[in-house]
């Protein structure tokens, strides 16, 4: 799915008049109070599909109005496609979690709860756009056509990447928090230099927004007016630390200080994520520079399989977010609107089963790398020291075979 038709439209910049005014009046209040208000206030979300599974109209929600045009072309079939993407991504993710429990993976970072943010934004992209993920973007990878089993290699411990970033314009996962936002910015600077109209998208978390690298990425992209979308999945937690430990002002508002627009979208609403990302990508293509999208969502599971969230967060909180489930709400809508029938859900279930089975089989058959792979690709041009150490180590290993 791509949208070119709405390219000429200029939606209101969300960090512009309305929200800026709100921020300014808050600033008049004593600082501590203003910060508290900003944090506690119900977030102003762009939402096109409510948690109850109802479509939002322009009249219902003026904030959403300007974005509705970006999904005008979405057909019922497209909606079923988005639903399928989310279901299969969740299934893949659940399978990976199970495989970790069975000892087949060393670690897994689950995306449970974040399917809409990833599928919505991922389906907004064009093939020639370039994606810089962090380590949890399994749904975006799915949208890019990366075989999901490729994502498992690094979590199994057989490689540090597992795919060629240029095949699907989907960069390798980045574990050092926030680093990739600068790579995305640089890539976008290159796109602009080339006069191309591709866009670049960088994914990162709410915790990552505290890193200096992310601030520097904002600065560079603003100064060079780079065609990059910063897509922050605010899943409320950075391991054990809630967003209050990272910021005192809603994240999307930060963009304003750097001179580009920021918008907060309901990250559990796949349609809104699609619309807002398309809007941001089009700004980038038109040469209007960077955008910050804050997808307001929730990490339903643990940070990773090594983490124990019961140590730091309450069940009630998690349960409250369960009611906003991204998949359930689209299902409700599809059923109520007659967009899908039982046969559709049944065949999708079968497809899920097949995917799960394939993932299990591929992972279990994934061989350990050859020992000598340690010395591979250390340099592109080769290196005398590596050659020497490789030869020494090979001789050492061979000495065992000779019954040393």
């Amino acid at each position: 799915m791509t949208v070119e038709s709405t390219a000429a439209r200029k939606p209101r910049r969300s960090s512009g008049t309305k929200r800026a005014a709100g921020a300014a009046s808050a600033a008049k209040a004593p600082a501590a109070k203003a910060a508290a208000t900003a944090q506690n206030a119900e977030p102003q979300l762009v939402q096109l599909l409510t948690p109850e599974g109802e479509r939002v109209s322009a009249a219902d929600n003026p904030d959403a109005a300007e974005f509705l045009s970006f999904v005008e072309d979405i057909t019922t079939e497209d909606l079923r496609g988005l639903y399928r993407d989310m279901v299969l991504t969740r299934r893949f993710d659940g399978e990976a979690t199970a495989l970790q429990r069975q000892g087949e993976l060393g670690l897994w970072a689950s995306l449970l709860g974040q399917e809409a943010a990833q599928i919505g934004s991922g389906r907004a992209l064009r093939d020639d756009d370039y994606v810089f993920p962090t380590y949890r973007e399994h749904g975006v990878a799915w949208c890019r056509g990366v075989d999901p089993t490729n994502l498992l290699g690094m979590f199994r411990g057989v490689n540090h990447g597992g795919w060629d970033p240029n095949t699907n314009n989907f960069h390798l996962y980045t574990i050092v928090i926030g680093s990739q936002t600068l790579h995305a910015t640089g890539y976008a600077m290159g796109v602009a230099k080339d006069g191309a109209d591709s866009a670049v998208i960088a994914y990162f978390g709410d915790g990552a927004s505290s890193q200096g690298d992310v601030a520097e990425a904002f600065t560079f992209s603003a100064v060079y007016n780079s065609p990059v979308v910063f897509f922050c999945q605010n899943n409320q937690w950075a391991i054990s630390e809630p967003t209050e430990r990272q910021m005192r002002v809603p994240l999307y508002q930060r963009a304003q200080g750097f001179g580009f627009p920021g918008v907060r979208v309901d990250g559990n609403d796949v349609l809104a994520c699609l619309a807002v990302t398309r809007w941001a990508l089009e700004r980038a293509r038109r040469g209007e520079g960077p955008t910050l999208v804050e997808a307001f969502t929730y990490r339903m599971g643990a940070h990773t399989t090594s983490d124990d969230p019961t140590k730091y967060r309450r069940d009630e909180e998690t349960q409250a977010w369960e009611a906003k489930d991204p998949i359930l709400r689209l299902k409700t809508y599809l059923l109520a609107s007659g967009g899908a029938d039982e046969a559709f859900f049944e065949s999708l279930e079968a497809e899920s089963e097949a995917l799960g089975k394939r993932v299990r089989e591929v992972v279990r058959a994934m061989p350990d790398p050859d020992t000598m792979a340690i010395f591979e690709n250390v340099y592109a041009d080769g290196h005398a020291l590596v050659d020497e150490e490789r030869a020494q180590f090979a001789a050492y290993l061979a000495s065992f075979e000779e019954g040393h």
Partner: protein
Amino acid sequence: MAVEKMSIAKALNESLRKALETDPKVLIMGEDVGKLGGVFRITDGLQKDFGEERVIDTPLAESGIVGTAIGLALRGYRPVVEIQFDGFVFPAYDQIVTQLAKMHARALGKVKMPVVVRIPYAGGIGAVEHHSESPEALFAHVPGLKVVSPSNASDAYWMLQQAILSDDPVIFFEPKRRYWDKGEVDTDAIPGELHKARVAREGSDLTLAAYGPMVKVCLEAAAAAAEEGKSVEVVDLRSMSPIDFDGLQASVEKTRRLVVVHEAPVFLGTGAEIAARITERCFYHLEAPVLRVGGFHAPYPPARLEDEYLPGLDRVLDAVDRSLAY
């Protein structure tokens, strides 16, 4: 007497607790150190008992963590900061190298920098990349920093106390794959000097020098060598900056052979410095060149290869044999 058997993790926890109790200026800072008690639970329960003003969950920003610790130290506090994993210290590397290390000298000795940077380091836990590295040489190379690594529970307890008491910045490397190893800790003991090497096992034919996670491997190698009639001494260096060359020299003058073992890449590593110094100091005593066993000039490999990558018993014994063959 307060002798208790505990894990290295517990010893570190007890050590931090004692430091918080004794000196109101001591602060703990880092990501997830509060409610969660750190991803390795080294700070478990400390926020509950000492409050959020003393045990501080920080934003996810390592440059910020070390940079603000420097400011707090300038204000008279003694911050002990936790970097979650070895590979994540680099956003803070600038602050550590260009600021923390040099502040005392720049201020002509007028300011002190009692900052401890705790880093769980090295491999062996099957983690994904950036979670298993041994960057100690990068810090030991920097004048102004002290760099240490305990190998057992007693040292974990006491060296951390001493690091916190030090008016110099100390990079405190914790061997994460040994966190659960238990040992006796005498919390009333009078500890030895922080930077003094320790003879962990006596021997007469050859000295194995190591620190942190590799001490255990060397002790196992020495035990295996003993079965073949070779008497191997194991020196736990404990400190990589400064290095106790006097202590090591004494051992080498006795055994006349030295093999240095560490997980970090051998090239330009701490072993290189040790080999050069010991060769200078013990040239006429040595029966063999100083040999080094360590990591390759290659990125730390994916988990499924770390058993091959990490120096184990066989590689250490191979070096012992090579040295003895001279």
